[in-house]
Structure formats: C-alpha cells, structure tokens
C-alpha cells in the first residue's frame, strides 16, 4: 500500500521530523522503530532513517530507538541521536528519572507514556517541563488482548503524532507480523487499535514547575588524567550500586520467613544474589539464616519460587505489595549510604531506613 504523501507537520532546522523511543530491552521498542521507519519510507515515501542505541542488548537494559523523516527530496546526512524529538514514546514508567529520557522535551513535543497513571501524576513523576502528554495503560491492554506492548505503543504514538495514517500502520502489521505470526495477527491489531483509541491526553505548557532538560552527551568523573591506566577498575563489586528493579515485569518473589528451613536452595537458583544469609541460629543450632530478599537487585525471574521446597517464597504481583517493607539491604556492604544508579529514579537507601 502506498499512501498519498502527507507533508510533515513540523520539522527542525535540518528539515527532519524526529521521533525517539525510550525503552528497556524486551519491550519491543526496536521493532516499533523499524515499523515506524517502514511506515515513513515505504508507505509515505519520506526519506527515512531508523537506528537504535546499541550496547549490551540484554533484557531489562535501557534502549533508545530513533526515527527521522524528511521530505522525499531532502537528504538525511546526520547519524547522531535525536536530541529534540517531535514525538517521544516511553515504554516503561520506571524510566522516570533516568538520565536523558526527557531530554529535549517541551510543550512542542507529543509524549506517550505506557502507564496506568494519569497525565498529571506522570508529569510529576517524570518532572516534565512541558509537553502534550498521552498516558496509555499498555500493561492492561497487553494482558486483555494477549498482545505485545509495542502494538499498543505504536497505536498511541500514531494518534499522538496527529498525522501518521492509522490504516497504513495496520497494513504494515498485517504485512510483517501477520506474515510471520499469523495466529497473533488479530490480537495485535486489536492492541494497535486500543492503543490508538484509549489514551488520555493533556497538554502541559512550558512552565517553571520543572526545568527544561537539554540533550547532553554522557560524561563521567573519570577522564584521561585520573582514570586508572589501561581501563582497570579498582572498585570491587561496584555493580552493587545498580538498581535493577526495572527488569521486573510485574511479579516479585515474596519471602515468608516462618516457613523457611534455611536450606539455601533459593541461593543456588538466584542469578542476582538477592537472598541475604547471615550467621545466626536456627532451631537452636548455629546456621546461615535467610533474612530475606534485597529487592534492589531482584529482576523478578521467580526461579527462587520454583526451587523453594517449603513455599517460603511465593510469587506476588508487585504493585499489590509493599515490597520495601520486606526488603533486606545487601549484608556485605561496608558503606552506610548507597546512591543507586538505575532504571527507576535515583533512589537512595541508607541503613536507618532499611
């Protein structure tokens, strides 16, 4: 299908309409970028580019995808990231607070966030300077329609763009997903439509409630004058300052201490060293005793639930629980405060609190 060419509603100084997708690995943002790229390139005949931020593309790590549209006769000479998007899709609300997610966003930007929360709540959480914000409950629709998050986000992004033709998007889904996974096509198309229809939108003008975040290149405190030679790392075990909570997909293990027999099977099944065992006493004898999980480092795989012989660990739905009441700080730490770097805001824990 080829659609009549729609003039781009707005462009930047280089003549591009730019889209940025902010996601974490596993939610399908790269495929969404590819589909938006094909939509522009093959259906609307724009000159188009699509690329992603690359790194270790493991599940749960932050990923960005960029799409540039230009009028057919306009060359795309730039390969650097999208700094000031016209349209931005945020695939996970845990990306709030993550460096650079809202870079370049202001009242001129259409913002789509996958969340059950209201635009006002999301604006507060993300500290958004301004923008036309659409909230779409992607998780709910995903479950109800047995589809994938990217379908809902694509539908919502299409609507928020104000110019991308929905029927072309449907056609692409039929052509790509439909050909590869015909059994999934109907549910995907339903997800796409509900994404298009069910968002809640509110416009926030630029005001001084939250400052504008300009795009900046990443920089570290270590440079050529002070980095240990040869790239050596001298801070042993320093990944402990990463909070990996955003890897969880809705479920968490719950620990029931009274049922625990200190067998240690959970520790043999946990890739993330979540359970905190310390020297103590059990049934009157010295033993390594399980104090419970360190939720900053739990990725929610639930392997521990399956290997626990006494149901002392069960699976729970994260938003129904106050997991931080159960949380046990990593017992090996020798620092009092730990400033976490994570996918889910700049949380700080200290010993007084936990």
């Amino acid at each position, binding site marked *: 299908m080829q659609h009549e060419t729609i003039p781009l509603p707005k462009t930047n100084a280089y003549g591009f309409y730019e889209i940025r997708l902010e996601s974490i690995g596993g939610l399908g943002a790269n495929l969404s970028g590819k589909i938006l790229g094909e939509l522009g390139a*093959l259906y609307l005949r724009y*000159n188009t580019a699509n690329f992603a931020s690359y790194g*270790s593309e493991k599940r749960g790590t932050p990923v960005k995808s960029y799409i540039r549209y230009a009028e057919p006769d306009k060359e795309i000479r730039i390969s*650097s990231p999208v700094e000031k998007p016209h349209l931005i899709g945020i695939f996970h609300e845990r990306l709030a607070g993550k460096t650079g997610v809202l870079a370049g966003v202001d009242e001129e930007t259409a913002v789509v966030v996958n969340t059950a929360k209201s635009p006002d709540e999301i604006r507060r959480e993300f500290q958004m300077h301004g923008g036309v914000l659409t909230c779409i409950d992607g998780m709910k629709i995903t479950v109800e329609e047995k589809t994938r998050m990217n379908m809902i986000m694509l539908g919502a992004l299409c609507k928020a763009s104000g110019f991308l033709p929905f029927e072309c998007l449907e056609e692409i889904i039929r052509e790509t997903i439909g050909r590869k996974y015909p059994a999934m096509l109907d549910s995907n198309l339903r997800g796409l439509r509900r994404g298009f229809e069910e968002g809640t939108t509110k416009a926030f003008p630029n005001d001084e409630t939250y400052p504008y975040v300009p795009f900046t290149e990443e920089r570290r405190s270590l440079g*050529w004058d002070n980095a240990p030679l040869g790239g050596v790392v001298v801070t*042993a075990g320093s990944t402990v*300052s990463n909070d990996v909570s955003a890897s969880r997909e809705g479920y968490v293990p719950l620990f029931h201490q009274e049922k625990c027999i200190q067998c240690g099977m959970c520790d043999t099944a946990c*890739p993330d060293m979540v359970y905190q065992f310390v020297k103590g006493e059990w049934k009157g004898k010295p033993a*390594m005793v399980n104090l419970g999980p360190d939720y900053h*480092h739990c990725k929610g795989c639930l392997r521990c639930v399956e290997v626990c012989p006494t149901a002392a660990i069960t699976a729970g739905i994260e938003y129904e629980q106050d997991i931080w009441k159960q949380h046990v700080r990593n017992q090996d730490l020798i620092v009092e405060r730990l400033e976490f770097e994570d996918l889910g805001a700049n949380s700080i824990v200290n010993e007084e609190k936990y």
Partner: protein
Amino acid sequence: MNEQKRVFHSGNELAALAAKQIRYHVMGYYPITPSTKIAEYLDELKAAGFSDVRMIPADGEHSAAGICYGACTAGGRVFNATSANGLLYALEQLPVQSGTRFPMVMNVACRTVSGPLSIKGDHSDIMYTLNTGWIILFAKNPQEVYDMNLCGLKIAEAVALPVIVAFDGFFTSHQERVAMIFENDEDVRSFVGETYIAPYHVLDPENPITIGAYMNEPDIMNNKYQLYLAMEEARHVIPQVFQEYAGITGRQYSVVQGYGMEDAQAALFILGSSYETAKEAVDQLRKEGLPVGVFTTNVLRPFPKMELFQLLSPKLTGILAADRQDSYGAEGGNMSLELKAMLQEHASSIKVISRIYGLSGKDFYVEEAVSMLRQAYAASLKQEVEVFDYSGRYQGEEEADRQQYFAPITLSRSTPGITSAETLEDGSIKIKGGTVRDGLQMPRRLAPGHGACPGCGIPINVNLLLKGIEGNVVLLFHTGCGMVVTTPYPKTAFKVSYVHNLFQSGAPTLSGIVAAFEERQRRGELPEGDDFTFVMISGDGGMDIGMGAALGTALRNPRMILMEYDNGGYMNTGYQLSYSTPKGAKTSTSHVGPAQYGKTMYHKDTPQIFSATGIPYIATVGENQPADFIKKAAKAARYAQSHGMAYIKALSACPLNWNDNPRYERSVIDAGVNCCYHPLYEIENGITTLSYDPEEKGKKIPVAEFFKMMGRTKHLIKPNFEEIMEDVQREVDRRWERLKARAESPVL
C-alpha cells in the same frame, strides 16, 4: 537502465541482499558484532528458499578466511564479512589471498579493536588492512554498501585481487535507510558476469597446478611487483566499473568526493558517514561567509592521490584531517598521514592538522564538524592551532568516585571449611561436605547489580562453582555474555581479581598467570602458603573459537580450572549457532524455513575432547544437582592446586534465546540431564564415573521431552521434523551407551 526497487534496509541487510543477488558459491563466516547480521540475513533468505549461497559457519575468523580461500582456489565466487578483532584474527590470511591473487569480496563493518573491549564503531580495525594487498572501498551509507558490493566483485575479478567493502559499524551497518536495489537478480548477474572463469583453480585434472609454492628472493620481488601492478591497474578499472554501474542504475560514483571544495580556503578530510554530517557543517559556515569545504575518499586502496589533489582549490591553505583511529606515535591517524604524504609529492604548503575523533562509536555531531572546520580555517590563516589532538577527550573530575563497597575477601574469610578432601589409595580424591547449606558460608565473590538477563544461568553456575573453591581465587573470563554483563566500565561485579581476554587467548593467558605465580612464589616474592586457585570461565562460543588454544593449554596441563557454561549458542551477539547448539535448533544463523530445518551438526561433545588431552580431572555439572556441583568444584580445585588442569562443563540456561520462561529453567536443566543430553559424570585420572544415572533412578526421558521445553527446539517435536528428532535421539543414545561402557571399564 535496469529496473530498481525501493527498500528500507540497514547496510548489513543490503550487503546480504547483494550477496544473494550475485549468487556467491560460498560464504565462510564467523559472527562478530556489528557485521553479524550479514550472515544472519543471508541465512534467513536461504531458509526461506530465496538464496542458495552455501553458508559455512567457521570456528573462528581465521578459519572463515581459510574456508573462503579454499573455495576461491576451487574456482568459487566467495563472500565474507567481519569486524574488529575478527578481522585482526583473520589478518594473517589476507596477504595469502591477495599474494596468490584470488579475488573475493569481504565486508568489514568497522569497529573498535579490543582492548579494552568495545563493540562500537571506529576505524581502528580497517586501517590494519592497508598493507594487505586488498583493494579497499569505503561506503558512506547503506545504499553505497549495496552498490560497492556489486561493483567490488567486478573490480576484484578484473584485476585478480580481493576487495574489502568497508563501512561504519552501527552508523551504517545497523542504520536503516531508504535504498534502491535491482528488482531482478538476473540484471545483477549480467552486470557482474554470470560465472567467473578463474584463470587457475584446482578442480581441473587436465591442468594440474600448484598454488602456494615456497618462494624466496629474488622471486618475491617480482611477485609483489605484480601485485603493485594490479593495484595500479585498479586505479583505472574502478572508475570504469563505476561508470558502467551508473549506466544501468543511474547511481554515479567517483573515487573521491568533495563538498564546497571548489573555492574552499580550509577543508575537513573525513571518512564514512561523518562526511555526510560534515556537509551540514559546511552549509552552516558558508552561511556565515566562511569559505570551507569537506572532502573524502571512497577508496582507501589504491589510495587516490591524484584525484584527491585535484579536489583542492588553489586557494586552499588549511586542512584538518580527522581520523577515527590513531597510528599511535605518528601524530595522526593513517588517512591523515597519507594525506600529508600526498601533499608532499606536490610540494604543497597547505597546513595539515590532525584530530583523532569518534573512537568507539562516540557520536559525531554537526557541532563537532563545525568546530573542526573552524580549526581548519584558523590553520589556513596560519593562526596558532594544535597540530595534533584528540577531539572530545576530557580530563576527569578531581573528586572522582573511588568508593569501596565491600571488604576484601581475605584468605581466612574465603576458607570456611565447607569441604574436605582425602586422597585415596588409587590416587583419586574424595570430597566430603559441600552441602548446599554449608555452601552458604562461602563469601560471594560476585556482586549483584550485574546486567545479566532475569533468570540467566551464568551467574548461577559461576556462584555454584565458587562455593566449592576455598581460599584465594583469580578469575579469567573469555569474551561473552558472562564478561559483558559483569564488567560495564567503570563498574565491575567482581569482588576478587579478574582478567578478561579474547577467545583464542583465555586459556593461555590464565596459564601465563599460573606460571608467573609459581615462579614468583619460588623466588620468594610471594609468601609460601598464600596460594590461589586460578579459574577460567568461558561460554561454549569461547570453546569453539578458543578450542585450539584451550586444548593446547590442556596439553601443557597448568594448575588451573576451566569451566565452560554451555548455553548452546553465541548469545552475546544475538544467538548464532555454536558447535554446541543442539542439532535442529533454530538460531539466527540456522533459521527454520521451507528450505532448511535449523542447525545441521550435532552438539559438540567437549568433555570427551578434553578427555583425550589427559588432564587429571574432567566433570560435567548441572545446577539441578547443586551439591554434586559444589563437590565437583571442590575436587577440581584440589586438582588445580596440586596436579594440573581441570575442565568442568555446566549446561547453562539462557531464557532469552532458549525462548522459555526463566522461572522454570531449573526443570529445563533437569530434563537436559535426565534425557542424557547432558549426562553428569567425572573423568578422574582417566577413569570415568557416572555421577548420576537417570536409568537407574527410573527418570530417563526422551530428548524430545527436553527439546519441547525450549522455543528454540520445540519445532522439532512436529511430525515433519520426526527424522531430525530421531537422529538426535540416536546420537544422544550412542554417546550415553559409550559413556556407560567407559564407566564400567577402567581401561576405556
């Protein structure tokens, strides 16, 4: 003009499409980011029945280059793709290919050469090939990748030299752009020629030939002069081929290109995608009235000296040459040096300053190009400008974070006495203790917060191994998921000392550490009794490309442990087949489709290969039997402390690429053990002992039960794959029966 069609593809995909349309006989390859997608996409086209290029997954880039060379000497049209250290590993073969004059095409998606290891794009790899005798074309965008692949083969065959088509890793290899390709494959083949008539090949019994005779002086002088002449001939052939190509596509190429050069007083010289970006900067500065321009070359070899000089306006007095690599100590990257050499030939007084930029994929923004052009302009005015510098470097903050989060794991802390060992009369070692409960006392040598996927088996297996190893340890990891997720600079997940090295040198590196430790202790530089257990961790990928070096190490029998976590694929690069991938499994280089059923080889029996080296201890382990795992780790440690090398293999879950639910991975591993795909056993001083016999326990299951738990193999359960499934079952049974026979007989 031949009919063209509009597509939206990445540079890698377009290289693959060109290969499919050319209909190469053979692609010998080994996956390496960012070039991997070329082989993946060709395999996908093959599985769908659209391509008949014979795909050969080598055991490393060196072998891939060998496969390509061999196929060329047999008269085939041959194709390859690689990057970075893969290119350097193959480097030795490149002059063989050119020196014996066999044309082929190799794509290089340019990437930073390790170490420290970086997967991103720069030109530090491609510049190593300048002296190899290959023609090197450089494509600036995905369209050019396609076009240069088609022109490249024609050029290669015209002058009997191999051709590299180079392009920016990620920026060009992964960026999807609108491109035009030939609608009909026949048109491509009529352009490159339906078949290639090799002047010499080994498949003509009527005309027996010798390729690669041994040659000293004076003949090498003449042989290399022939190569020089071929390069000179290429100077003429390349524009001719470009001209012919323009005639059928409308896409006209030239060996060099300039923008705003006609009247430029100052110019930027830059390669690849950055050239396009710099054009925006030229436009900006021209609006300000600055007479600047940018120029580039589309051909690195033969270096188009004359054409480059002709681009320079008589007004030009300053050039900034920007290189995405450094020829350390020469104060300039290679293109900068060659540009200066070219100007010297013309006794030019143009001032050239050099900048190293964009290393490891550091983005190149219009602003940086503007700044470079301003510096070139300053140089043109004879103003004071640094002659050489790194663009975008920074000093670092005085108060840089050096916080320690954990107390060091001292010898006493890491010796809780979980296991004890006794040497029996027959020389074998018996381990006592090592229960899962006891194991909890061992301090964790690995910290959380690493980037492994939820449910990943690697940290689980590493932790179980380390629970059994008392005392100091030094770890060495091969490249792979385990390495990448644990050491994202400036952080590390390791609380004990750790070294990374590349696939072919993990085992030798650790054996070198062992040797220096022994020697330093013997000389009294390290205290007696302060011993270490030296542990190497590799994936099954590392045991493909690193197999030769690992076996060589085993034959030297140093005091170390090598644990292989076998998840059956190259997971770190997006799941390409490894030799340990199950037969029939779906991977990104063994697609399932109408023309192909998945991987065609059996899974590799690595423990049995190591068994032939005669090392004192070999064991297989599974996380489903953690106490057995810890005991075997303890035993391996005893052997590594006093006897020599131990090899341990763990079947390791990869939820992402096994395509199953991470929650249930332990039961998948359990099934892998119970179906005897991964039987648990030891070979101690040559004596095989089964650690667990599922038949005896009444738990043996068909391999199909294991395969159906994983998305990557569950298609094999369908009736149309019955033959493959039966075949795999037969092979697993054969290995199991042989293993039992070995366990029963002390001489086997």
